[in-house]
Every structure is written in C-alpha cells, then in structure tokens.
C-alpha cells in the first residue's frame, strides 16, 4: 500500500465508513444535480436541435441520444454492481454491498429503456419491432440478470446472506458483458456494428458525436445521483440499530 499517497488511503477509509459516506454525499448532492441538469440540457439541445438530420434516416436517428447512452449505462452499471459485489465478498465492506445492490434497479431501468427505444426505432427502420439476433437476445438476458439480482436480494431476509448470494449471481453474470459488446462482431446480426467504440475513428459525424458524448456523460451523473439516493436509504435501513443513526435522528428531532 506504500505506492498509494496517504491522503488517498485516508479518503478511501473515510468513505468506507457509513456515517462519513452519509454526510459526504449529502454535501456533494446539489453539485451533482447542477452538473447533471447542465449536461442534459446541453446534450438534448445539441442532439435534438443543433445536430443535422441523418442522410438516410432523417430525424428518426435522434433516438440514439437516448438509446446508445442507456445501452452503455446498462453494461457500465452491471460492471459496477459486479465489482463492488466482489469487493464486498472479499473484504466484507458493508458500503460496497450497499452500492452493489443499489445499482441493480438503476441498471435494470437503463436496460429496459435501451430495449424499448431500440424497438421503437427498429419498427420503421428495420421493418420489425424485435428479432432474436445475438445482440438483442443478450441484452434481454442482461435485463433478466438484473431482475434476478433484485429478486434474489428481496427474497432473503438476512441482508448479509442476501448480499453474498447476490454478489455471486452478479459475478457469474459478468460473462454476458463481453458477449453483448462483441455480439455484433462475432455473429451475423441485424443490429449494426459499433459506431463510436471502435479502434479507428468513429463512423459518426462530429456534429452528431458531441451531443451523444454529452448525453453519455449526463447519464453517468444521473446514475451517480440515483445511486447515492438509493444507497443512503439502504444504508439507513441496514444501520438503523447502530449508534450513529440513532444520534443523527435524535439530533434532527431537537
């Protein structure tokens, strides 16, 4: 641990302590909301108003400003859920368990949004709402994995055991993440190949790319806000018998 600066280690340990996390997130919350609102406004204005229409799809392509960031978030949040789950398993850090389970409903929502917006776009463009190709099917499996995690956690009353079981399920499901990402390259699919995340330059005009990246960033901030709100509630619920929660509540009552 001698390679990591002392201040980082101290920050990490402080953050892992529930009362500090609770107080710290309360302080940064307004800033996160401000950044999120600004990014979303800029991204939507850029995407829906400034960006030009597509040469083939006209204005219909604008659904990518919701669809693509949601799909990215569905994968990103799953990785956060699995990694924090693994940290919780190995180091038994309560906060990691809380972050992991609090991510699940947010990830499930983004997966759902990606599937629905893709379907709405698919009907006029492809000529069908849904096909069972590798990309669409693996993304649907991701939704079921999220629902499985949420269901399993809810089904077990002892939240310590629930967290462990959920972490194992989440880690096993990680195998689906590269499958979703590479499905369009490994197999013939109706879904198109990657546009932005490929090695050579993106095959999207820069005037359309910038709003897309802004929206992607704004979705990250939305996740952060939603995650903090959910995790604070989850933390209070789990720690309701601990001294710091009792002290805080009695201070608030006075």
């Amino acid at each position, binding site marked *: 641990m001698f390679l990591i600066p002392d201040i980082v280690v101290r920050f990490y340990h402080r953050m892992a302590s529930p009362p500090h996390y609770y107080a710290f997130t309360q302080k940064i919350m307004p800033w996160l909301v401000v950044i999120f609102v600004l990014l979303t406004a800029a991204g939507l204005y850029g995407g829906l108003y400034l960006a030009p229409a597509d040469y083939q799809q006209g204005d219909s392509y604008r659904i990518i400003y919701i669809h693509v960031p949601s799909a990215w978030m569905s994968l990103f949040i799953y990785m956060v859920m699995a990694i924090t789950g693994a940290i919780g398993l190995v180091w038994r850090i309560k906060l990691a368990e809380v972050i992991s389970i609090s991510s699940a409903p947010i990830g499930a929502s983004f997966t759902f949004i990606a599937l629905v917006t893709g379907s709405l776009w698919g009907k*006029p463009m492809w000529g069908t709402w849904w096909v069972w190709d590798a990309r669409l099917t693996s993304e649907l499996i991701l939704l079921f994995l999220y629902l499985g995690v949420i269901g399993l956690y809810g089904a077990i009353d002892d939240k310590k055991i629930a967290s462990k079981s959920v972490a194992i399920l989440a*880690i096993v499901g990680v195998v689906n993440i590269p499958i979703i990402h590479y499905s369009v390259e*490994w197999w013939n699919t109706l879904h198109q190949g990657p546009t932005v995340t490929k090695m050579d330059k993106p095959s999207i005009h820069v005037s359309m790319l910038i709003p897309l990246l802004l929206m992607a960033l704004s979705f990250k901030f939305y996740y952060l806000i939603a995650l903090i709100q959910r995790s604070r509630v989850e933390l209070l619920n789990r720690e309701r018998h601990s001294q710091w929660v009792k002290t805080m509540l009695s201070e608030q009552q006075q």
Partner: protein
Amino acid sequence: MKPARKQRLILIGLMVVGVSVATGFALKSFNDNLMYFFSTTDVIEGKAPKDSLFRLGGMVIKGSVERPNDGMMVRFKLTDFSKDVTVEYTGILPDLFREGQGIVANGKLNPQGVFIAEEVLAKHDENYMPPEVKQSLKNQSEKGKGQ
C-alpha cells in the same frame, strides 16, 4: 493481504475463469445457430437449408431492383461481394431499403434457386452523417474516378 481474504479473492477469480471457459465452449458449439442469417455464398455452396425457411443477408446490388409485372412483386439481387442470389418479394419494403443497402430477408429457395422472401428487413450500417457530408463524399469519389 490476510490469508482468508486472499483465498476468497482467488476463489472468485477461479469462478469467473470457469464460467467464462464454459460459456466460451457452449457458444463455440452453438456458433452456427447463433448466426442470424446465411450469406449468399452459403446459399450458392448449398450450406443453407433446402426445404425450410431461413434468413438470407446481403447487400442489394446497385441497378438490380426491378418490378417485372408493374405490381407489388420486387425482384433484386443480393451479394456478399463474392456470390449473388436473386430474391423475389411481394409486399411493402422498409424505409431503409434501397440499392446498395444491406438487408435480411426471410423465406425459402424455389427449385430454380431463386429466394422467395416472405419478409424483408433493412440492416442499417454504423454510419451516421448529415446529407451534405454524404453529398461531398459522393462528389469526391466521382472526381477520384474521373482522374
């Protein structure tokens, strides 16, 4: 790191590796079934099913789209840039259907080797650009050909 933690970390690592290897083998053995469509070369080489429905994917050859009877029936040629297959379809084509566009058609082969499609889906490519950029790209490539 404490031995107990190290053990748990290794256990998780082994679990991830194990699940990945198992999934890798499963996907490899189901590889052909995971393909959403057959290519035109598959059809010419006889790899596609003869009597049952299957999906055929390829690019619509420029200048090959015709309506022989002035009706709803469309005939066009699909290619994967090596072998061509003729497709016939009666019905409404999706918005993105045009010459030079990738499509996926569901149907079966008739005895003459013509693919009778029951459904045609457009496969969008990964390119997004404004119409002006497309026009200038086209102009450039025409200039390039002229020289």
